[in-house]
């Protein structure tokens, strides 16, 4: 008797969550998969009663679309560049931070600051730092102020570079994005790796000290293996986040996703949103499924690699 009353109550307490999840999480998974296979699905037309045929046209269109290759290339490039750079930097910072006494907590707090920011807002600050006021692509270039980064590089005799303005080269745009994304990704990675370091048993280090092992060797042979589960974790979450890169680019370049709104830095997620807003929901769904498949594959590869390398 008590038990059945209990069950009834359990479902009552669960009902708000289950209703919301059913409508806004479970149904969308099924429906988005369905939309991906409805040829040229358009939401507005669907609401007006149009019926769509089943087929693979959406996927064909996504893959054939020239801009999609750019999106895929940009997304992969950003991942491949930012994940290793930010992981290695975070590891060095965490190890250094773990080995000092005074100022540790203070520095740790400072390093965490980029996490509690609005990626659009700070993207605009980075844009201001790299921005050249004037017309740098004119002949001869008209530079009112070159921006603080160019000023800094000027100290080493580097000519002002057109980082983000109209006519700027792809590598310069990419450099700005890599700098911004790494800056933004460090706090989380430092936090996790430092947490890992603090839970490492001190005995290993004492033993190494007795043996007179060099610092570099300690790092390679003790710290990294013991930290490998955390490293695997930040690499995997880094890749997942990297494949969904979007708002940091909007922060620096605006919705045009590139200098002069030329979409040169468009990403997979950017493509999905543009298709969605352009009333090509079928194509957006197909692209979202492709993105999901890529993330799943990369995560599985990462897990497979870490299974061989990670020492638990």
């Amino acid at each position, binding site marked *: 008797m008590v038990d059945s009353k209990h069950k009834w109550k359990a479902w009552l307490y*669960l009902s708000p969550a289950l209703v919301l999840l059913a409508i806004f999480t479970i149904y969308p998974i099924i429906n988005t998969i369905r939309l991906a296979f409805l040829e040229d699905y358009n939401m507005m037309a669907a609401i007006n009663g149009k019926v769509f045929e089943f087929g693979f046209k959406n996927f064909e269109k996504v893959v054939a679309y020239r801009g999609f290759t750019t999106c895929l290339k940009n997304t992969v490039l950003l991942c491949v560049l930012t994940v290793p750079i930010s992981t290695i930097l975070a590891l060095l910072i965490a190890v250094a931070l773990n*080995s000092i006494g005074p100022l540790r907590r203070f520095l740790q707090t*400072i390093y965490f600051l980029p996490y509690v920011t609005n990626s659009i807002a700070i993207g605009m600050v980075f844009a201001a730092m790299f921005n050249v006021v004037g017309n740098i692509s004119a002949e001869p270039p008209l530079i009112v102020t070159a921006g603080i980064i160019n000023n800094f590089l000027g100290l080493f005799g580097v000519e002002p570079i057109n980082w983000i303005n109209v006519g700027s080269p792809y590598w310069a745009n990419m450099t700005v994005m890599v700098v911004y994304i790494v800056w933004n990704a460090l706090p989380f990675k430092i936090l996790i790796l430092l947490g890992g370091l603090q839970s490492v048993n001190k005995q290993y280090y004492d033993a190494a000290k007795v043996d007179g092992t060099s610092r570099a060797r300690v790092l390679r042979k003790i710290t990294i293996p013991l930290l490998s589960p955390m490293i695997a974790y930040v690499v995997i979450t880094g890749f997942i986040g990297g494949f969904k890169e979007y708002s940091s680019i909007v922060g620096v370049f605006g919705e045009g996703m590139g200098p002069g709104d030329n979409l040169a830095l468009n990403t997979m997620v950017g493509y999905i949103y543009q298709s969605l807003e352009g009333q090509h929901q079928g194509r957006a769904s197909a692209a979202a499924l492709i993105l999901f498949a890529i993330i799943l594959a990369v995560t599985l590869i990462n897990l497979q690699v870490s299974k061989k390398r990670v020492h638990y």
Partner: protein
Amino acid sequence: MAVKKNREVIMHERDIEKTSQLQIVKTVFGTFFRYLFLLIVAFVVLFPFYWMIISSLKSLPEYKLNVPTFWPQEVMWGNYAEAFTAANLGTLFKNTIIVGVVSTILSLVITILTAFVFARLEFKGKNILFAGLLATMMIPGELFTITNYEVVTRFGWMNTYTVLIVPFLVSVFYVYLLRQNFMQIPNELYLAAKVDGTSDLKYLWKVMIPLALPTIISITILKMMGAWNSYMWPRLVANDEAHRLITNGLRNAFTAASGETNFPVQMAAVALVSIPLFLVFIFFRKYIMKGVSRSGIKG
């Protein structure tokens, strides 16, 4: 013989002294370089914030000087007032706070109830249901957004507060986080309360919520920050003057405007959006860092 042996011992001691001196020099250098490295990193981390603040206080002519100044010649507090009106920040703040507060409260109620059921109550299929919910966490949010966009259009929710609050009220991740915390509370307490005739809800309110308060605070802050930083969904479904949220408004205010950008005013607006986040961080650092280290998600 005795003298010779003594000498050997002395030589050996000298050797030890030498190596230990070398050791000290090495340690001093090591510490020096470590601090140097860490301070350079701190400088790089802080520089954008510094640049944001000082740029926001310069006049436009000073901002455009060929050789940059590192401290404003004349502090222009007026930029902040101008930013406030130019970007219509008053309405944007109001909207964001309404959406943030309402969605956080509702989300907490639902999350606590759900976590309680999964942590304490028993019913058939509980574990399968919970595993199924966890599995949805792997799926990228864009996949949901596509269908939800259509669903809220059909519901007629476009350009309302409802559309900003309801669809993302339940976060499986927060349910998971809180359930883990609830599970650590000994079951004996619950059984004792049952014997005393305490109702489930009273037990939840009097015992479990106080004990899990740190986690609940973490969830509250992360959820509020999420509302403050959300960009894509609000842009898609509520981009009208009356309901626009802060992040969107900020980006729009300075891209839509034609003509020359007033950079100092733009930086002032950016600072106004960033400062509340810093304040929250200063006061709730511990909860934020704890929540983040267990989640790995932003907002």
